């Protein structure tokens, strides 16, 4: 372990071995050196902040002032407020509907793209484009599409005679949340399409051929071959997307910031407004910690799945 690793290049073995050579000759030491920057960065910007957020949720903390321990006061304040319960409901609605619609559209797109058709490459490229568009850009573009007086939707619908006056898509209490979800779906569907298309292409053709010999129709083949083969892809995609959808604030923040009357407010954006706009960092952290147990379930399940998949 000591000197036998210095190569035969004429180094006198009496000389002390340089530090770098000693490190690079020990696998453990070298691994530690290689991983050190990663460990440093992730400790400072992920691991420590996570525990810090947890402890902040039990403090009364404003910028520039040291925090004061207040026990469960933040949580009691939140759950005593009916508006907060409304925001919890909004978050669940927004996530479940958004994820379901993305699932349906993504699966339809993947099935269609998997059919034999000329110029399929072009269609695929087009349907994937929203995925490469930054969410901020997508949100600003849709903000303009929804514009009450000059947006595409109202201009088009008025010209077609479907409506007489422009609709305020983002201010109408019954429509606002749906308008938000539409943007989330537009931007997020390609993520599903890609996963599902890759999954479909991995199904062995022989399965379908055998089923055809047995006289199975299209619906039958879909239900008894496609769906069972895609089960893993379905779960991984839905779980990942649930974590990302429920914690993304961009679309809500830019389109409505929670208006009208808090009907489109979701937990992460509420926390953002509390902590940044009003400086109540402790309360803001408590809001996030309410969402966290649900996320944790998905994160643990996903990690297990991903590791199982990556392990072979």
């Amino acid at each position: 372990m000591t000197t036998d690793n210095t190569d035969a290049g004429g180094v006198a073995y009496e000389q002390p071995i340089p530090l770098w050579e000693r490190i690079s000759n020990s696998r453990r030491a070298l691994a530690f050196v290689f991983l050190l920057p990663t460990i440093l960065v992730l400790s400072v910007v992920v691991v420590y902040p996570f525990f810090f957020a947890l402890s902040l949720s039990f403090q009364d903390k404003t910028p520039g002032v040291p925090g004061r321990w207040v026990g469960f006061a933040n949580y009691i304040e939140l759950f005593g407020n009916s508006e907060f319960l409304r925001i919890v409901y909004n978050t669940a609605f927004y996530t479940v509907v958004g994820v379901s619609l993305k699932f349906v559209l993504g699966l339809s797109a993947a099935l269609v793209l998997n059919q034999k058709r000329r110029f399929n490459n072009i269609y695929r490229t087009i349907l994937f484009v929203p995925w490469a568009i930054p969410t901020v850009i997508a949100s600003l573009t849709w903000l303009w599409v929804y514009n009450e007086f000059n947006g595409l939707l109202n201009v088009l619908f008025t010209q077609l005679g479907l409506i007489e006056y422009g609709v305020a898509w983002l201010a109408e209490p019954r429509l606002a949340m749906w308008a938000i979800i539409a943007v989330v779906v537009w931007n997020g569907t390609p993520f599903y399409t890609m996963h599902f298309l890759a999954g479909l292409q991995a199904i062995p053709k022989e399965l379908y051929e055998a089923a055809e010999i047995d006289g199975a129709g299209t619906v039958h083949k879909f239900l008894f071959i496609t769906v069972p083969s895609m089960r893993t892809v379905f779960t991984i995609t839905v779980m990942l997307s649930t974590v990302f959808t429920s914690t993304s604030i961009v679309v809500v923040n830019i389109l409505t910031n929670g208006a009208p009357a808090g009907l489109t407010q979701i937990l992460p954006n509420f926390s953002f407004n509390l902590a940044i706009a009003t400086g109540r960092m402790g309360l803001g952290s408590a809001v996030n910690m309410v969402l966290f147990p649900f996320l944790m379930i998905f994160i643990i399940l996903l990690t297990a799945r991903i590791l199982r998949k990556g392990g072979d």
Partner: protein
Amino acid sequence: MAMARARSEKITRAIGSVVLVLLIVWTLAPLYWMVTTSLKMPDEIYGEDIPLWPRNPTLENYRILFEQTNFLMYFRNSLIVACSTTVLSLVLSSLGAYALTRLQFPGRRLFARGLVYTYLMPESLLFIPLLIIVVSLGLQNTHQGLVFAYLGFTVPFCTWLLMGYFMSIPIELEESAMTDGCSRLGVLYHIVLPLTVPALAVVAFFSFTLSWNEFIYASVLVSDVDVRTIPTGIPNFIVEDVFFWGPMMASTLISAIPPLVVYFFFQRYLITGLTLGAVKG
């Protein structure tokens, strides 16, 4: 029997074509509105009679954008931040992935699991403490602060992705190089990295787009106009000007171009990066 199947196949294909057309219209409509608005004069953007296409296409909105707004500064800031994050992620994740796949050490599996956890940790959970940390490090309102924060989500993902590729390289290649007197770093640089160019491309693509698009950290850690990146810079045009939609759509179009170019360029490699849910959707 065979005829029935042929007919059912025809119907499925017809339905497929209809669905395809609807999906394409839904995908392209907002982008069409973005592009056409950016080419219109104000009287075609606002007012009584709004045409669905520009009657007199003009680049006036782009001139206003470049000459009268901070757009070029935001664009430059975004480029600096995204490129720095990409380079640092590549270095950190290649070193880390090599250590985790090739240098046996105790706790290796635990570390790999920890990487997945850190990747899945949402930014919206971390931004409040991160603000306090970045302020205390004196990195508020700096590009360095942003890059540092972004490494928190690029490095775990990139390391994980590279681990998969490194494992697929036959270890014999490295062993023979090392008996020829090549050091570990030499092996990584001369043998492993050249063999994983496609993976490095994917890693670069994701680091670049993730940091180009990032919104929460950018709005929390930077309040100074001079340091703002595109995602936090251009929404402010709304506050600054009444007739902003023309230049605004010009700016969204230009801001979408870098990720789109990278996307078209790397398209065929990207499908391989999907196993971990490469881009958050």
